[in-house]
C-alpha cells in the first residue's frame, strides 16, 4: 500500500526536528576549541553521569565505603608505628611482648587461657606453689588486652607479636597485590581483546582458543607447583595472576565488547580515513572498551586477594606478612581447632580477607549496573 508521489502536508507547520548541528557545535570559527579539550569535557561529563548512576546503587557505595575503611587501615599502620606504638613491642615481624596473664593453678586444666596445671606451674615458677593460687605468667599467644602499659587490642600470636599490627600491616600488601594484578590483567586483556577484534581472522581465532585454555586452567594447582620451582613474592604473584587473567576470560569479553556495533563503526571509519593499525586500536577501540575494563578489574582484584591468601595459607609464598600467612601460622602451630579459645589468631585475618574481597566484589557489581544498562532497576 504505497502512494505515488510525496504530498504537501495540509498545514504549513514545519515538522519539529532534533537540535540542529549548529546548536551542538556552535557557529563560531571551526578551529576555536582544541580537540583535546573537547575530549576532556566529554570525558568529565560522562564520568559525572556514571558517578551519578553509581551513587544510586547501594551495593557499590557500601563496597566503596569498605574499601575506604581498608585504605584507612593501611595508612594508619605507619602512622601508629611512628607515633603511639613502640616498635620493640608492636612491630608486626620483630616485635615481642609476652603479656603477663593471670592463671589459676589447678590439677586438671579445662581452660587453657585461664588455668595452669600444678606441675607445670611448679616448673615455671617455684616448687612451692599450690592448687588454687593465682599466679602471673608471661604468655604468648595472649588474648586481647585493653589495659596495661602495652595493650594488644587483638592479642598476640605465638611469637608474642601484636595481631592488630600484623593485620594493619598486611592491608598494604593486599592493596598492592590487588592493584598490580588488576592493572596487569587490564593492560593485557585490553590489548589482546582489541587486537583480536581489529585484526579478526586467524589472529582472533588463535587468541581466543588460547584464552579458552587459560580459562580452563586451574590457577591454584599451577601456582602451587610454580612455588616449588621459584620463590614467588607479591609482585611476581600479582604479575602472574594478571597475565593469567588478562589472557583469559577478560580478553574474551573485551573482544566482544570491542566488536560491538558502535566500535565496529569507529574501526571502519578510521580505517577508511587512513589511520594506521595501532593508531586505530589505541585511539579508538581502547577508550570505548575502558568502562568494561574497570569492571573486570574489580573482580580481578577479588580473585587476586583470595589466591594470595590461599597460597600464603599453605606457606608457599615468599612474603613477610599477609593475612593468609597469619592464618598459616595459626594452623602450623596447632591452633586450628581451638575455635573460640584462640579466636584472635584466626578470625581477624580471615574476616579481613573476606571483607576486602567482598568490598571489591560489591564495587564490581555496582559498576556492572552502570556499564550494563539492562541491569538497572526496572
Amino acid at each position, binding site marked *: 500500500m*504505497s502512494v505515488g508521489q510525496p504530498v504537501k502536508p495540509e498545514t504549513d507547520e514545519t515538522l519539529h526536528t532534533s537540535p540542529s548541528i549548529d546548536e551542538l557545535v556552535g557557529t563560531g570559527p571551526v578551529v576555536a576549541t582544541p580537540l583535546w579539550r573537547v575530549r576532556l569535557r566529554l570525558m568529565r561529563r560522562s564520568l559525572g553521569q556514571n558517578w551519578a548512576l553509581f551513587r544510586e546503587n547501594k551495593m557499590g557505595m557500601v563496597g566503596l565505603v569498605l574499601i575506604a575503611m581498608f585504605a584507612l587501615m593501611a595508612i594508619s599502620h605507619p602512622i601508629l608505628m611512628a607515633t603511639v606504638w613502640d616498635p620493640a613491642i608492636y612491630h608486626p615481624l620483630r616485635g615481642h611482648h609476652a603479656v603477663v596473664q593471670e592463671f589459676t593453678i589447678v590439677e586438671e586444666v579445662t581452660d587453657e587461657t585461664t588455668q595452669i596445671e600444678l606441675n607445670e606451674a611448679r616448673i615455671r615458677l617455684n616448687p612451692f606453689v599450690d592448687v588454687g593460687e593465682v599466679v602471673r605468667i608471661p604468655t604468648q599467644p595472649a588474648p586481647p588486652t585493653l589495659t596495661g602499659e602495652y595493650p594488644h587490642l587483638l592479642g598476640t600470636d605465638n611469637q608474642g607479636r601484636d595481631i592488630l599490627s600484623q593485620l594493619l600491616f598486611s592491608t598494604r600488601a593486599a592493596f598492592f597485590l590487588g592493584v598490580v594484578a588488576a592493572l596487569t590483567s587490564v593492560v593485557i586483556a585490553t590489548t589482546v581483546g582489541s587486537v583480536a577484534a581489529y585484526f579478526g581472522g586467524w589472529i582472533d581465532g588463535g587468541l581466543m582458543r588460547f584464552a579458552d585454555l587459560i580459562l580452563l586452567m586451574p590457577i591454584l594447582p599451577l601456582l602451587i607447583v610454580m612455588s616449588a620451582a621459584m620463590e614467588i613474592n607479591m609482585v611476581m604473584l600479582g604479575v602472574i595472576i594478571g597475565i593469567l587473567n588478562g589472557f583469559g576470560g577478560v580478553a574474551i569479553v573485551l573482544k566482544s565488547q570491542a566488536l560491538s556495533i558502535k566500535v565496529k563503526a569507529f574501526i571502519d571509519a578510521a580505517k577508511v580515513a587512513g589511520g594506521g593499525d595501532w593508531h586505530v586500536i589505541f585511539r579508538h577501540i581502547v577508550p570505548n572498551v575502558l568502562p568494561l575494563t574497570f569492571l573486570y578489574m574489580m573482580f580481578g582484584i577479588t580473585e587476586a586477594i583470595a589466591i594470595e591468601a590461599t597460597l600464603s595459607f599453605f606457606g608457599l609464598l615468599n612474603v613477610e606478612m599477609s593475612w593468609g600467612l597469619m592464618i598459616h601460622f595459626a594452623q602450623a602451630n596447632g591452633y586450628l581447632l581451638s575455635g573460640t579459645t584462640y579466636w584472635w589468631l584466626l578470625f581477624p585475618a580471615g574476616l579481613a580477607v573476606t571483607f576486602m574481597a567482598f568490598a571489591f566484589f560489591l564495587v564490581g557489581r555496582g559498576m556492572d549496573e552502570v556499564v550494563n544498562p539492562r541491569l538497572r532497576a526496572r
Partner: protein
Amino acid sequence: MTVISVEDMSGRSVDPRKPLLEVDDLVMHYKIKAGEVSAVDNVSFTVHQGEAVGLVGESGCGKTSVALSLLRLLPSNAEYISGQIRLDGQDLLQLTDNEMRARRWKDIAMVFQGAMNSWNPVYRVGDQIKEVLDTHFRGEMTYDEQRQHMEKLFAAVGLPAEMLDRYPHEFSGGMRQRAVIAMALACSPQLIIADEPTTALDVIVQDQILKELKRIQHEMGMSIIYISHDIAVIAEVTDSMGVMYAGKLVEYGDTADVFARPKHPYTYLLLKSTPSITGPRRQLAPLEGEPPNLLDPPTGCRFHPRCPFATEKCAMEEPPLADIGGGHRVACWHYEQVPDLEEALVR
C-alpha cells in the same frame, strides 16, 4: 468434558444472536511509581457466537489490555476497578485463580502478538501442544489419541504432521504462526483472541494467515476477536469492529458501516490517513500530535486536544457511547459534523 474432535467442531451450530462474551463497563488501571495509568475506561462491547469482532487503535490505546483482561493475564500491578466480563453469562473477574486457570485455553484461547516467540525453544512443538491437552484433559486421552488429535489440528491449518516432532526454530515464520493457531484450537475453545496476528509477517504470508483464520472461523463456528493497529486487517476479516483511543471505546458497529460512514473524528482521520492502492489519489491527512499521557488523561473527551471539531463542551463533558442507529455507536458530541469519506472501501 471431553475434547471435541476437529470434525465435530466443523458443523457446530451457532446462533449469531446469542451473545458469547459481554464486556460490560470495564474499568482498569495500572499502578506505577508515578501514579495510576488509566488504561481501560468504561469499555463495553459484545461478541456473539460465530462472530468476528475487531478492535483497532494506536499503540497504547488499551486494546491489548482489554484482550489480556479477558484471560486475566495482566501483570500484578494491574487493578480492576469495576465492570464485568461475562462469558456465557458468568463473570470471569469474579472467579478464583484456579477456576480461571481451568477456563483458560479451554473456553478462550489466544494467538499472541509476535507468535514467533510464543514457543519455548527447548521443547518440540508437538510436546507443547500436548501440554495443553495434559493440563485440561488429564487422564481422558491416551498418548495415541492425543497424537491423532494433534495431527488433525495441524492438518486443519495446513501443516504436515511430521512437523509436530520438530523444534520451533525449525519452522519458518508463517509456519510458526499456523502452528500457534493449531495450538489455540487444541481444546476447541468457543472464542479465540488474535492479538496482532499478522505483524512481522510479510504481506503474502499475512494474506494466507488471514484467509486461514477466516476459514476456520466459518467452518468451526468460532468467535474471534482481532486486535490490530492495522485497519486493513480489520477490514478484511471482521463482522463488527470497535475503535479504541486512549483507553476508551470511541466507535463501534458493523465493519462495513464504520468504514463507509465513520462517525467519530478519530476514526475518520484514521481512515483518511490510510492510503489506498485502488482508490483515486488524494491528499493524506496525518493525525497531528500524540496520544495523551494516561497518567493524567485530558478532561472531557480524551480526543479533544487533537480533534478538528472540538469545542468547549468536548473539554468539559465526556460524550457517552450512544447508539446512532443500526447498532452503530459513537462517543462524540459532534458526530454529525463528520463528513463522508470520498470513496467506499473496496474489499
